[in-house]
Each structure stands twice: as structure tokens, then as C-alpha cells.
């Protein structure tokens, strides 16, 4: 070790080593000179003599330095060249090893890039850990994440001391008209503190002034906005409009009103949502309703306060408000969640699972490569023995073996970085719905991770061989005399361990992906309560400027529906303020209660409100559980009616009929009236198959006209084919009112479990790769075993062993490895299954069917891997073998 240490010192402290050498030589000369002076020579003469006797200090120093660098590099160069030559000797195996490690390192790095950018890195705002989202909760009504009521925000700001700021916002579509075709943009109306509390300064211009916010007093989301409106643009919209640096001060026409641009926000400012196009001010300070829970809220905590402390404080404020306004606030509390968690959502757990899975895959890859080099060195053990006998030092041989692994891992790492870079480029093709996708970049942490992974791979894939060699080397020297007949026991322990660990790791991955498949099938197979097939969704945002009366919006929709129904291949047309799984449209709740019940009784529950047209039920294939559906009889002036869904009916009148009863709806702006229940609608999983049905009421759109509507069309064929015709029709009816985006409902529904699909596909690919590698190893080891024992097999055959017993002998060895790996893998999978729990729906983490399929599949594939080498064993010609003898 001292020698190695010395070399490290020489390389890392070159200057110091040079200085020490000079000092050492000077000392030598001084000693000699001193002795001569003692003997009576004068000093100058002594120096001259010394120089002649022992040579020049300078040239010796040069020689020393030259040898040092030369030695280190030469040694390294020799080892690298030698390893490269060995690797070139078996190009197939080498390429396979490099590719295996390359894929493992590449995919691991790619996933780490995602985990790093999406989960680990803080949000790109100053002190982001103090930013939180606020939700209203009503635990009795089962509401955990409701929007907040605007008046509550004003009270929180007055009565709490935990926050530097609280802001409310609401996003909706607004139509931009200008030179080209009108288009719908996503606009957030934001209260005064919004930009100040996030603390991101505008890229251009400024944020809204207090005065601009005060002017923007509109009570309802769709009400006309105040005088002299202003707007801020997102970076993306600004660039789309030409990226003019002097845009501040110009005007835009939104919903037929002229807005002055006051600022542009920087790229990466993705609040309140990633697809945001613009912001307009919104004054929340006025007297606003307390029971309309639809506003998003964001806040910044004061330094040093925890989320829990702030939540406690707000809940005590909510308690006071419930006492002061029992009719609207009783039962309502508050929940705070870190903005980071809200932004990342369930993607974090998916990414962690995938990163862990790809880590297992990398282990399989390392074990595979370790096995390959182990097998290579076993085939080379004769050569090794010869070199040992000729005096090569064991340490040197070990260094050479390790150098091979380092070369392979280095090449694998290079390939991996190419794979990761390519994957990063292709990422937007495969997924556009990842949160923080725009922030996905490579940083120094990723580089450290990738390098570390490469080093780790070199160690993991090189150590088993090096370790085995270090224990075998003394024996290898002796085995020179009869290399084929000795050393049969121990060498297999390492080889078998590599195979067993690969099988076990592959089993873990198979079990995990099997569970995800089951969960995905459950999600896809679940009946959401509506039929999305052939349905196209077109969100329409009418503006209050042109459609300021119910009559106008009724007329618009009546004309539109007539024209759409007349389109060829359209089976039916309907509309609703919000449709299941569509992110656009006003989804809000109102308190409802049976007519006879007291307004503050426990039977007062919040119900989601939908305004629907008669065609809606048929177009979405909703089930009518009781009574009748809304139809043309429910005209503006006829009896006010509504429908309830099964959940609401069961909650208010358990075991009794709801049809014919009267339900009071607290529709604050329009007053509190009773409505006659004409029918009960089947429950719908409104937010997709992971969500539970909530209480819902359906109003006839004719009786409660609404400006925003998701129009749905049903066709027998592909809904995509309808898109051009629908766009043309919309333009004909009102050129200023295009749809935001036309999307088939099946895609919207699929998007609610897109993450499940992505996780499943990724894990299936990982598991498939792992199985492939593991089976390759089983095959390789058995084939080598047959090769090594060909003498023994030949002898047995010559002594009369029949083919079947030989097949049994080889196959038993293979199946034993498979069985041990399978058992270990299943045990480990069982232990790890809890980590998947959050991703699974409709299947237990310890699902027996999945385990059975894994066992069956692996046994099947494993059999194939053992059959071929077994058959090869029977083809050995005993005569040839015995002649070699």
C-alpha cells in the first residue's frame, strides 16, 4: 500500500514532491561538503569536488521528475492498452456489456433528471418553501380540497398574523381578437397580493398597481370587469405575439374590451397553472359571498412559521367566522398544503417508484456484466495461471481485471449520457402533462449522479470478478498442471450468485409491473358512469360584454346546437357548464337542503352545480335512475326544476324516493328558492376513475342560462374527424367565440390516469429488460458449465449414461438457480410491495394472482433458457472428448 500511496502523493502534490526532492539532494551535497571541509579542503573547492564525485543536483532532479510522470502515465497507459486488447478479443461480449451498462446508466440518469427537476429542486420562486395553497374544507360533506369563498379571504387577511400575504385567483377562458382569427386564452384574474407574495418581478413593465386592482371590482367570475382594464402577459404569449420589447403600453382586445398591457412575466412563472396566458387584476376586498367556494388561494407564510401553525391559526379564524355567519360558514374549515407538493402532485411518488425500479434494473445490468467478465476470466484462467507462474504479480493481474471493468463502465457511462440526452429530447413527444416540464434541465447534481453511477457500475460489475480472482490466484498457479479438472466447486458460487441475484431482481420488477398492470386495467375497465366513446368536447366561453342577458346566451346556444345537430355524422349534441374530466368550466358548489328542513340543519350539504341542456344526458350516456330527464318542457317561464344525482338523493332521503320532492338551493346571487326534483341521475366519477361521486344537482340551462358551456357532440365514428366542421360552425355563429380546444372525451378521461399508464409502461419495459438479461445469464452459465464439464459428460456417455439423464443433470442445475432467485425475488417483492401502495387502485400490493403470473411467466421463460444448453450437452461426442483426454 505504501507504494500506491506514494504514487497518489506524487500525482496530487507534484510541487511539494519536487521541492522535497530538491531539499533532499541539497542535504546530501551539504553533508559531503561538510565532511570535506572538516578534512581541511576550503569550501569552494569542496563543492567543486563533490560535484565531480556525485554528479549534478539539477540533472538528477530533472531525471527524478521525468521518471515520476513517465512512470505513472506509462503504467496507466500499459494497463489501459492491455485491457482494451483483451476486450477487443471478444467484441461481441464487450459490446453487450457496454450496451447493457449504457442502457442502465442512461435510463437511470434520465429518471434522475426528472426526479431532480420536478421533485427535488425547489420551485423557481424566491423562498418557495414558504408558499402554500389554501383550501376550504367541509369534512361533514366530505370536501377536503374545495375552493375558498372570496369573503373569507378578506377576513383571513384581517384576522390572521401568520401570512405575509394571501391572494385569490380564478382562471377562465377569454377570447383574444385581433388581426388574425380569434383565439381563447387562459386568463387568471388575480387579487392584489398575487405577484407581490410570489415575489417574482415582471420580465418587462410592472405588476398591477393598487389603483388598477381597485377598479377591477366584479363580483362574479363572468361579470363585466371594471373601467380601463389592464393585463399582464405570460412569457409564452408575449413571444407568440411577436416578442416585441416595447409591448408595455400597447393594447389587446379581450372579450371585446380593450386592455392595456402593463407587464410581461418571465418564463417559468407558472402560477396559478402551467398553461396560463395572461393575468388581469381582481378586487376581492368588497363584500363578496361567503358560500361560493370556487376561488384558488395562495399565500406566503411569515418566516419561521410552519404550515401546521398557520393552518391552526386560520382554522381558529374559520371557527370565529362559523359563529358569526352560521348560515354560510358552519362546518367549514381550512387546509394548507405546500405549493411545491400541490404543483408536483402524485407525480412525485410515481417518479420515485420508477427511479427505484430503474435502480434495480441497473443492478441487474451490473450483475450481468459482472457475470460476463467472470465468465471471460474463467475461460482465461489457463492464461492467468501461466502469467502467474512466469512471475506476474497478483496485484498487477487484479489491476488489469479491474481496468477491464473500468473501461466497460466508462464506455457504458458515455453511451448512457447519450441515451439520457436523447431521452430528454424525446420526452416532450411522450408526455406533455408532467408538472414543471419546462424546468426539466440538466444541472451539476445530475452530472454528479451520472458520474457516480458510472463509478458505482464499474465497482459493482468489476468487484465480483476481482474478489474471486484474488481468492483464486494462489490456486490458479497450482492448477496450471491440470486446469480442467480442479476448481469446480467454489468458482460456481460467484457465478451462481450473480445469476440468482439477477433473477431475484427481475422478479421484483415483474411483480411491481404486474401490480401496475392490474391497477391500470382496473382503472380502464371501471365504469365512470358516462360513455366517452365518440364524444367531442368543445369549451365555449361567452363574454358578458356581448352576452349580458340570459336571452342572448340562450339564443346563441340554441342556434349553435341547431347548426351542430345538422352536421353529418353527429348523433346528438348537448352542453353543460362542466363535463366530467374536463379541466375547463366552472365547477362550484352551492348549499342545498330539503324544503322542510331548517337551513342550518345537518341535511344542509354542498352540491356541485351543473347547468345542462336536454341533449346532454343522451350525448354522455348518463343513466336515469328515477323520474324523468330535463327536456324541452323545462322552459324559462315554466316551473323551476332540477335533477339530483344518486349520491345526493341517498344522503338527503336515504331509502326514500327523491322525485317529486322540493329541494332548496342557496343560489346567493339569485336568491334562495325551492326547486322541484324531476329525476335522479346516475352517479358519475366526475374526476375520473380514482374519484368518488359527489353530491350533484343539474339545472335546465334554459331556466338558468350560463355564459360558459362545455358543448359535447356524439358521433358514431372518430370524434377527431368532427373537429374541422365544429370549428367552422362556431365561427359562423360568432367569429369572436371560437372554442378553446376541441378534445375527445376519451382523451380527457384517459388523461386522469395517464400517470398510471406511463408508470405501467415504464415498469413493464424495465421488467422485460431485466428478465431478458437474467435469462441470458441463466443460459450463459449453463452453456459454460456444459463446456467446462464436456470431459465429464463425455466420460459419462461413454460409460452408458443416456441423454435424458444428462438433460436432467443440466436442467436441474438451471432450474435450481431459477427457483432460488424466484423465491428470493418474491420475498423481496412482498417486503417492498408497500412502496407501491399509493399508486395502486383496485388491487392489493400483495396480490396473489400477480405473484402466480410472475411465477408462471418466469418458469416458462426459464425452461427455454435451460433446454438449449441441456440439449447441447447430449450432442457432445464422447469419442472426441476422450481423444482430447
Amino acid at each position: 500500500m505504501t507504494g500506491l500511496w506514494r504514487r497518489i502523493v506524487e500525482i496530487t502534490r507534484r510541487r511539494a514532491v519536487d521541492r522535497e526532492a530538491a531539499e533532499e539532494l541539497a542535504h546530501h551535497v551539504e553533508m559531503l561538503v561538510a565532511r570535506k571541509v572538516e578534512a581541511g579542503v576550503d569550501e569552494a573547492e569542496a563543492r567543486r569536488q563533490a560535484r565531480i564525485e556525485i554528479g549534478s543536483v539539477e540533472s538528477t532532479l530533472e531525471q527524478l521528475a521525468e521518471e515520476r510522470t513517465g512512470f505513472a502515465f506509462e503504467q496507466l497507459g500499459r494497463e489501459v492498452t492491455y485491457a482494451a486488447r483483451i476486450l477487443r478479443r471478444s467484441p461481441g461480449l464487450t459490446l453487450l456489456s457496454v450496451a447493457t451498462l449504457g442502457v442502465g446508466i442512461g435510463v437511470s440518469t434520465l429518471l434522475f433528471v426528472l426526479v431532480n427537476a420536478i421533485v427535488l429542486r425547489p420551485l423557481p420562486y424566491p423562498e418557495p418553501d414558504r408558499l402554500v395553497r389554501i383550501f376550504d374544507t367541509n369534512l361533514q360533506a366530505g370536501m377536503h380540497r374545495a375552493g375558498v369563498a372570496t369573503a373569507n379571504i378578506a377576513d383571513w387577511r384581517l384576522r390572521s398574523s401568520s401570512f405575509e400575504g394571501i391572494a385569490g385567483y380564478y382562471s377562465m377562458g377569454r377570447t383574444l381578437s385581433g388581426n388574425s382569427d380569434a383565439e381563447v386564452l387562459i386568463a387568471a384574474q388575480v387579487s392584489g397580493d398575487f405577484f407581490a407574495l410570489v415575489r417574482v418581478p415582471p420580465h418587462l413593465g410592472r405588476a398591477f398597481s393598487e389603483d388598477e386592482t381597485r377598479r377591477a371590482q366584479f363580483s362574479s367570475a363572468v361579470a363585466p370587469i371594471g373601467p380601463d382594464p389592464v393585463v399582464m402577459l405570460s412569457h409564452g404569449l408575449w413571444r407568440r405575439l411577436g416578442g416585441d420589447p416595447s409591448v408595455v403600453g400597447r393594447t389587446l382586445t379581450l372579450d371585446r374590451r380593450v386592455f392595456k398591457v402593463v407587464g410581461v412575466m418571465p418564463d417559468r412563472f407558472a402560477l396559478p397553472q402551467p398553461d396560463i396566458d395572461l393575468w388581469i387584476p381582481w378586487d376581492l376586498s368588497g363584500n363578496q359571498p361567503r358560500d361560493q367556494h370556487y376561488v384558488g388561494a395562495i399565500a406566503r407564510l411569515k418566516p419561521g412559521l410552519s404550515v401546521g401553525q398557520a393552518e391552526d391559526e386560520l382554522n381558529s379564524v374559520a371557527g370565529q367566522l362559523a359563529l358569526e355567519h352560521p348560515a354560510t360558514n358552519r362546518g367549514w374549515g381550512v387546509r394548507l398544503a405546500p405549493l411545491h407538493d400541490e404543483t408536483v402532485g402524485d407525480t412525485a411518488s410515481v417518479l420515485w417508484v420508477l427511479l427505484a425500479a430503474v435502480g434495480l434494473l441497473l443492478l441487474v445490468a451490473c450483475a450481468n456484466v459482472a457475470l460476463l467478465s467472470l465468465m471471460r476470466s474463467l475461460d482465461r484462467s489457463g492464461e492467468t495461471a501461466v502469467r502467474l507462474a512466469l512471475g506476474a504479480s497478483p496485484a498487477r493481474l487484479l489491476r488489469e481485471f479491474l481496468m477491464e471493468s473500468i473501461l466497460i463502465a466508462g464506455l457504458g457511462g458515455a453511451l448512457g449520457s447519450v441515451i439520457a440526452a436523447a431521452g430528454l429530447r424525446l420526452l416532450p413527444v411522450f408526455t406533455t402533462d408532467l408538472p414543471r416540464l419546462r424546468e426539466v434541465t440538466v444541472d451539476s447534481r445530475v452530472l454528479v449522479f451520472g458520474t457516480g453511477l458510472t463509478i458505482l457500475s464499474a465497482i459493482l460489475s468489476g468487484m465480483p470478478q476481482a474478489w474471486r480472482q484474488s481468492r483464486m490466484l494462489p490456486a490458479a498457479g497450482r492448477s496450471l498442471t491440470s486446469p480442467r479438472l480442479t476448481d469446480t466447486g467454489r468458482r460456481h458460487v460467484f457465478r451462481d450468485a450473480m445469476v440468482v441475484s439477477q433473477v431475484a431482481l427481475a422478479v421484483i420488477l415483474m411483480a411491481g409491473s404486474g401490480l401496475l398492470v392490474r391497477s391500470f386495467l382496473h382503472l380502464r375497465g371501471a365504469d365512470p358512469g358516462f360513455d366517452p366513446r365518440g364524444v367531442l368536447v368543445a369549451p365555449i366561453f361567452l363574454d358578458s360584454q356581448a352576452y349580458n342577458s340570459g336571452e342572448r346566451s340562450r339564443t346563441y346556444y340554441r342556434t349553435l346546437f341547431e347548426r351542430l345537430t345538422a352536421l353529418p355524422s353527429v348523433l346528438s349534441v348537448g352542453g353543460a357548464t362542466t363535463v366530467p374530466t374536463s379541466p375547463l368550466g366552472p365547477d362550484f358548489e352551492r348549499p342545498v337542503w330539503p324544503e322542510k328542513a331548517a337551513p342550518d340543519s345537518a341535511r344542509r350539504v354542498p352540491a356541485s352545480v351543473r347547468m345542462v341542456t336536454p341533449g346532454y344526458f343522451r350525448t354522455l350516456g348518463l343513466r336515469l335512475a328515477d323520474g324523468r330527464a330535463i327536456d324541452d318542457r323545462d322552459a324559462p317561464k315554466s316551473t323551476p326544476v332540477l335533477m339530483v344525482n344518486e349520491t345526493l338523493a341517498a344522503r338527503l332521503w336515504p331509502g326514500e324516493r327523491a322525485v317529486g320532492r322540493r329541494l332548496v338551493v342557496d343560489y346567493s346571487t339569485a336568491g334562495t328558492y325551492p326547486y322541484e326534483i324531476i329525476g335522479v341521475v346516475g352517479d358519475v366519477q366526475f374526476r375520473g376513475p380514482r374519484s368518488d361521486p359527489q353530491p350533484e344537482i343539474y339545472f335546465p340551462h334554459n331556466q338558468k342560462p350560463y355564459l360558459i358551456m362545455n358543448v359535447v357532440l356524439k358521433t358514431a365514428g372518430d370524434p377527431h374527424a368532427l373537429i374541422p366542421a365544429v370549428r367552422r360552425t362556431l365561427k359562423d355563429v360568432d367569429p369572436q367565440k371560437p372554442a378553446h380546444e376541441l378534445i375527445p372525451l376519451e382523451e380527457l378521461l384517459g388523461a386522469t390516469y395517464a400517470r398510471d399508464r406511463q408508470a405501467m409502461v415504464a415498469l413493464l419495459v424495465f421488467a422485460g429488460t431485466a428478465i431478458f438479461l437474467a435469462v441470458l445469464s441463466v443460459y450463459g452459465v449453463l452453456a459454460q458449465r456444459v463446456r467446462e464439464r464436456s470431459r465429464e459428460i463425455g466420460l459419462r456417455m461413454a460409460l452408458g449414461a443416456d441423454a435424458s439423464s444428462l438433460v436432467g443433470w443440466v436442467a436441474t442445475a438451471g432450474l435450481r438457480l431459477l427457483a432460488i432467485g424466484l423465491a428470493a425475488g418474491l420475498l423481496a417483492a412482498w417486503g417492498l410491495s408497500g412502496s407501491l401502495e399509493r399508486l395502486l387502485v383496485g388491487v392489493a400490493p400483495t396480490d396473489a394472482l400477480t405473484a402466480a403470473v410472475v411465477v408462471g411467466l418466469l418458469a416458462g421463460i426459464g425452461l427455454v433458457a435451460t433446454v438449449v444448453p441441456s440439449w447441447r450437452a447430449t450432442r457432445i461426442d464422447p469419442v472426441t472428448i476422450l481423444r482430447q483426454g
Partner: protein
Amino acid sequence: MALEKLDLLILKTLLLSPRHGYGIGQRIEQMSGGVFRITLGALYPALQRLERSGLVKGSWSTSENNRRARYYTLTAAGRRRLTASQKAWERTVAAMMRVLHAEE
């Protein structure tokens, strides 16, 4: 592997006690009766080589005239190597002598 002649001599001088470079040179000269005179250009590269192979270990300490000097110590590996190489040399030398003195 057999050691070069100078390497062997250096290790031998270190067998009983650590020495600095000058001391090693002196000792070899003295033991060889002045036949071997070691130059800097031979001694220090050899020491560097031996240290790198882990046969000797150098460390700074104070010399007899109160100056900083680098002292070399024989390591365990060096001791083993010395024994082995010494035997090999003795055999070689004996064989050489037999050949040279043989009556043709």
C-alpha cells in the same frame, strides 16, 4: 523478480537502521571498500523506484547535524524481497565464479 544490483545494496544498508540518502551512499562506499561510488543520478532514482514499489518508506526527520533529512526505512515487503534477492544473487555470483574459474 530479482532486484538490480544497486537496489539490493540499498536495501541491505537499511536492514539494521533507517538512513538518509547520504548515509546510504556512505555506507555502500564504506562496505564495498570504496569500490562502489554512488552518484546522485543513480542513488535517488533508485530510491524513488524502491519507494514506489513499497520496498522502502521515506519520511522526514532531523539528521545528526540538526537538519531536516529524509530517512528511508525498510518495509516488511522490502525485507522479504531483500532475503529472496540476496539468495538469488549469491547463487548467481557463485555460478559466475564457477564458470569464470573453470579450467577450459
